[in-house]
């Protein structure tokens, strides 16, 4: 096969690996801009992956599965938000506990049921899909992948242009000041977590009913943490965050494709690449890496 074909294949594979990350990264990005360091993305993705397949299997409709996956993410976001931004339980405790809880629940539930394989359909865009190099990667995916075309600008608009997003950013930078301006800090953060839950849920569900078509134990395999690494890699900007996802997706695709192209490499350390890249990005571009000033800090009215 020609170099061009190989590149096309790797690109397509990279894009497929990127899409679930990109969905979740949009959500996590928004949550972190609101100051909510949400480490339960993994739970959101895994939970959604499970329910989407379970639903698809029960109803026979992968699309319904996808929708239920989104709802699952929302529910987890709701729980996380209320525990850590209403009841003020340390957000890391909540995240760790939720991750354990969802991993436990899905691993357990999968033992009680066998699910049929279900996958949403491919949507190829005529003409465009024949563009050399990128056509196959970008224009012949499973249909929900095209939702990114909608959701990325929407996330950008929400954060950077909408009033809600302005308030979110205020909450992420200086919750005390936002509070006296009349912004309900806890409410905004909980809403951000809902958005994050919905998108991470979509990402997880897409992984299950979009990419793979089935569920197996711990199938997200740490993608939630990779998503966090992507937001950090992206210096809390949406474009770069998505670029991070793409870099991680493509590097995985390369890693998985190179042996087939006759290049041998030890993949083990490459598994760690996203974390290493995120750290390196922070080290090298320290000055541009301005995290939301209140990232990960609880807000308490009256404390400064």
């Amino acid at each position, binding site marked *: 096969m020609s170099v061009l074909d190989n590149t096309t294949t790797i690109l397509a594979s990279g894009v497929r690996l990127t899409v679930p990350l990109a969905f979740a990264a949009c959500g996590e990005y928004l949550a972190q801009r609101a100051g909510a*360091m949400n*480490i339960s993305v993994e739970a959101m993705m895994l939970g959604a992956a499970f329910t989407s397949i379970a639903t698809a299997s029960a109803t026979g409709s992968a699309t319904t599965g996808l929708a239920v996956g989104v709802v699952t993410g929302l529910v987890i976001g709701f729980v996380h938000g209320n*525990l850590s931004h*209403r*009841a*003020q*339980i*340390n*957000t*890391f*405790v*909540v995240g*760790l*506990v*939720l991750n*354990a*809880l969802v*991993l*436990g*629940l899905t*691993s*357990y539930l999968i*033992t*009680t049921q066998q699910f049929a394989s279900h996958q949403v359909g491919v949507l190829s865009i005529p003409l465009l899909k024949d563009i050399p190099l990128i056509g196959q990667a970008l224009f012949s995916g499973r249909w929900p992948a095209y939702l990114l075309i909608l959701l990325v600008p929407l996330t950008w608009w929400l954060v950077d242009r909408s009033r809600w997003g302005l308030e979110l950013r205020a909450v992420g930078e200086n919750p005390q000041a936002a509070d006296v301006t009349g912004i309900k800090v806890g409410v905004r953060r909980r809403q951000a977590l809902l958005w994050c839950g919905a998108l991470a849920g979509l990402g997880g569900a897409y992984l299950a009913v979009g990419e793979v078509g089935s569920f197996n134990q711990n199938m997200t395999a*740490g993608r939630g*943490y990779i998503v*966090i*690494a992507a937001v*950090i890699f992206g210096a809390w900007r949406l474009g770069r965050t998505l670029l991070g996802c793409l870099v991680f997706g493509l590097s995985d695709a390369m890693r998985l494709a190179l042996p087939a192209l006759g290049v041998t490499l030890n993949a*083990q*350390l490459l*598994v*760690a690449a996203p*974390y*290493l890249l*995120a*750290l390196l990005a*922070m*080290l090298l571009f*320290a000055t541009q*890496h301005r*995290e939301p*000033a209140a*990232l*990960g*800090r*609880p*807000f*308490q*009215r*009256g*404390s400064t």
Partner: protein
Amino acid sequence: MRAAPTMAPDDLGRRVLAHLRPGRDGWLTTSLTIVLVAVALGVSALLLTLTGASPSASLSAIWTGSLANTTGWTTTLLNAAPLLLVAVGAAICASAGTFNIGQEGQVLIGGLFGAWVGLRLALPGPMLVVVVMAAAAVGGGLWAALSALMYRFRGVNVVVSTLLMTFLAIQLVTFAVSTPWLQESAQGSSGIADAQSNPLPADALLGGLGQYPSMQLNAGLFLALVAAVGVALVLSRSRWGFRVRMVGLNPLTAKHTGVRVAALGGFTLALSGAFAGLAGGLLLASPVSPNRLQAGLSDNVGWDGLLVALVARNRPLIAIPVSFGFAVLRAGGDFLSATGVPYYLVDIVKALLVLAFVAPPLLVGLLRGRRGATPPTPFPLPAVPTKMKAAV
């Protein structure tokens, strides 16, 4: 010469009790805790019933596995020691205002260093175990020190970097045990080596009293308890501890009074890594363990230890009973899953119980907040260190 400071025991006792005595909202909190624990247990019971297991039998299995007999006690105490070490470390750097969440990785790296030294160094007798434990502490410490350096010189958020470093550590150890670095030696031509190290030589193991399954106590528990009490004393009573607390509460004032804030902050982070590393050494060198480095060596001890510290609100003495409670759950959970209950359910029960214990004080605060009084003190998340003005 100055007279040795009188450590008024009554004074110490009073302080300890002050921590334990229910405060203004104590009774409400206590009753809410009871209710929530009951709810958690109820939900767990429901799940158990769904799997066809009997809740009461499960409860009694947890009891049997953790407290009912000497074997249970031994298992519980074995579980408690590394958790306590991790939690004590977390408390140190939290006192200095730094939030380390990378203990899981630091535990692993501790294990890596310990295994490396234990397997490569031919030292006589008891020297070896000391060196192994020291190497483990150094390993965990260095790993955390990397985060401290990244913060110091490039302002990289410590929470973020310690989290990322955890995943690096996991991959590093996975790599180490499947390459000549530390992989076990394969026997014979077709003998296939697993992804783990050779067992440590007997000299590298911690000594203990008694033989499992009768009561077995080893140096690890002793070490952890000494660490907890020692760190509690050092933090509250020593000059060094005073400086650490100052750095945690107001780094600028601390700097003004002559504290090397950046150095001390970084050092406490490294120290907390060292405690986590020591926990890794303990997991490795405990006489009642496989004594091999494996990718799963840490087995969530880092995460659980962090939870212990958070539940104990970063107070080393409180961490003793809390780590014990977690250990009961771990030991009892192991036993429960040996009765045929899926281990995942045990994880679920554990998670629910943690929430049930953590939530009440905050819920009480929330209720009070509703009624217009001073809002609750937030869960003591020490300030995520931001770039401290131009001053540091």
